[in-house]
């Protein structure tokens, strides 16, 4: 039994959030609606982790604001635990759904534990008097978000990453069925992003919480999510499991742009430096060969594994930590150590490729 497993927020496999024919957008000055997204149909069940992906300006934030009730929908409905979101009071909504925003919080002099305690607001009376249950929930939330060691610190002293954890703990203290996070990894460095995503994944698995999180970390989302909610630039929306959307090319379409392409192997977008460079047959093993082909791509060449018909041949060999390379072509052989010299040589080769 994990320390995270408190009582389950809701029974497993229950739909927690349902968007039904939802149209999101803004009402203009004369009541003329400006639609941002149309035909949003999606269901998130308890114990599921969904990532909201899409290019900037496609309407991710608008959709999130509508789903958490901060903004009215133009058409369609949102069901939260089976209740129409628009009919729930602010308090009833906050008991079922909590949110972590990108807003920077400036609370003045407040301890982490007191800030997390504010998460009990929808459950306590006007005096904010807490019983043992409330206090247990606060400690549980601190532990679950990995913020227990910070409990006695002042909020203003925290780093961005620590503050993010504390805001997640505060959201968990609301004991929601669903946690919605708006780009929580935006200000974090790479390792903190991976840590945070892993922490949320564990929460989903061990407590049956549902999480919807918007992000630009495509690779992390495809590896971690149970579902991808994908917003296209043309105001359409689709949802599915990560592999389906990646395989069908939907993700590549959503982010389509000049000079980039979706690399299925890496699960992310890569820069395409034009595919008309010279083909280079790469010979070598393991990591050295992998990074040699990345170096070739960067230099504007097209790496080919075990290709016999190439005019250029590159062999790499990692010995004693240093990478030695040999490039054959046009009747000449060049060799060197380290990828930096290799890239220079490949650039020269691709420049004379014609």
């Amino acid at each position, binding site marked *: 039994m994990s320390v995270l497993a408190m009582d389950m927020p809701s029974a497993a496999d229950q739909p927690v959030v349902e968007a039904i024919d939802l149209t999101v957008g803004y009402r203009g000055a004369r009541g003329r609606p400006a639609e941002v997204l149309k035909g949003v149909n999606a269901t998130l069940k308890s114990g599921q982790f969904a990532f909201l992906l899409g290019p900037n300006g496609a309407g991710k934030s608008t959709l999130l604001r509508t789903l958490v*009730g901060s903004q009215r929908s133009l058409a369609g409905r949102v069901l939260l635990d089976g209740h129409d979101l628009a009919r729930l009071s*602010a308090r009833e909504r906050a008991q079922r759904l909590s949110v972590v925003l990108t807003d920077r919080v*400036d609370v003045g002099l*407040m301890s982490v534990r*007191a800030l997390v305690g504010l998460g009990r*607001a929808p459950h306590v009376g006007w*005096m904010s*008097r807490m019983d043992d249950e409330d206090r247990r929930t606060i400690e549980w939330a601190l532990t679950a978000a990995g913020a227990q060691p910070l409990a006695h610190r002042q909020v203003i002293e925290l780093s961005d990453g620590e503050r993010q954890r504390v805001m997640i703990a505060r959201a968990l203290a609301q004991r929601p069925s669903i946690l919605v996070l708006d780009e929580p990894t935006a200000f974090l460095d790479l390792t903190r992003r991976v840590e945070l995503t892993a922490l949320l994944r564990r929460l989903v698995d061990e407590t049956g919480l549902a999480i919807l999180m918007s992000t630009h970390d495509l690779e992390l989302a495809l590896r971690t999510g149970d579902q991808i909610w994908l917003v296209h630039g043309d105001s359409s929306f689709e949802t599915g499991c990560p592999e389906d959307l990646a395989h069908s090319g939907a993700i590549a379409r959503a982010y389509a742009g000049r000079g980039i392409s979706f690399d299925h192997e890496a699960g992310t977008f890569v820069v395409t430096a034009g595919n008309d460079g010279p083909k280079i047959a790469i010979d070598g093993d393991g990591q050295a060969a992998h990074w040699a082909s990345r170096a070739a791509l960067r230099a504007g060449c097209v790496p080919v594994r075990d290709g016999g018909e190439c005019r250029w041949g590159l062999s790499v060999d990692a010995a004693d930590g240093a990478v030695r390379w040999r490039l054959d072509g046009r009747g000449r052989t060049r060799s060197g150590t380290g990828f930096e010299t290799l890239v220079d040589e490949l650039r020269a080769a691709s420049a004379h490729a014609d």
Partner: protein
Amino acid sequence: MTAVAAGVIARERPLRLVICFAAFVALAVFGFLILIARGTVYIPIAEVAQIIFGGEGSREVHRVIVMDARLPKAITAVLAGAALGVGGALMQTLFRNPLADPYVLGVSSGAVLGAAIVILGTGSAGWLSGLTIVRQIGVTGAAVAGAALVLMLALAFARRVGNPTTVLIVGVMFGFLSGAMVDVLVYYADPERLQGLASFTRGTVRDVSWYDLQVVAPSCLVVIVVSIILAKPMNILLLGDNYAATMGIKVRPIQFVALAMVAVLAGVITAYCGGIGFIGLCAPHLVRGFLRDSDHFVVLPGSAIVGAVLVLFAEYVAGGNGLTNATLPLNSVTAFVGAPVVLWILMRRRREAGQVPT
């Protein structure tokens, strides 16, 4: 006894809180007593006590001084200080600005302008002249309306510019603008009516009679009680409007009620005591500094008590205290405490300069 102890532990209130509150209350009581006991006319303390508890005193004039001058003055100082302290705490949270305060943001100036329009503008028309009660309520109502108007304008500006220091400048400009309009009104006004306006711009608790207290006391008490009831939503508003909306708070209605409270207290206090500066700014910061906590459940009551303490002692220093013959405007004394606090806040926020809290 155990229930009380459990309550204290339950809220995780440390010893520091108990000691600070005890000190605040002790200072307020001391300030109240010293304001009654000392004044330009020397009256022995024993005689003051005797008069307070219903005695006649040695001379009739002593009884009048204590009962009709010093007592209402001290009560007004407590009420005005408490209301201004609470109002400052509310405004600092609503504006998300540590420098917000009814006086600094020009709310008091707006109240003076409202009052001036009624006092000076009704001169020739005369529909209010002679009707003291109607006039009094008219002046107070106009002051509240003027305060509310400036509050709304200042809030609109604060939402746009965000930067606390800029908001401060905007507030000062509102103050100048209102002041200029009052000057224009004065220039064209009937000289006889100017007397009624003189006290507004000075800021004093000396001119409030028992009769006036019938309006001042209930309004201040209502404002203080309602504000303390707002402690929970105010705590959540510390996280910002967007977060508050997702934590079960009806943001707009709460903001409306809180701003209405500030408008009422600034309007009423300005109508009866004139603009008293810096109390609303300092009291909450002193409380947060001493308690090391921004929790409104302690900041709001704490600001009320500390606000009262500040006005009591400022009045003792400014008014006839038997030590010097001079009487100073209240604001020149409060500025001695207030201006350094403003500078201290600005220095402390230097690192975050230019960063807009949203």
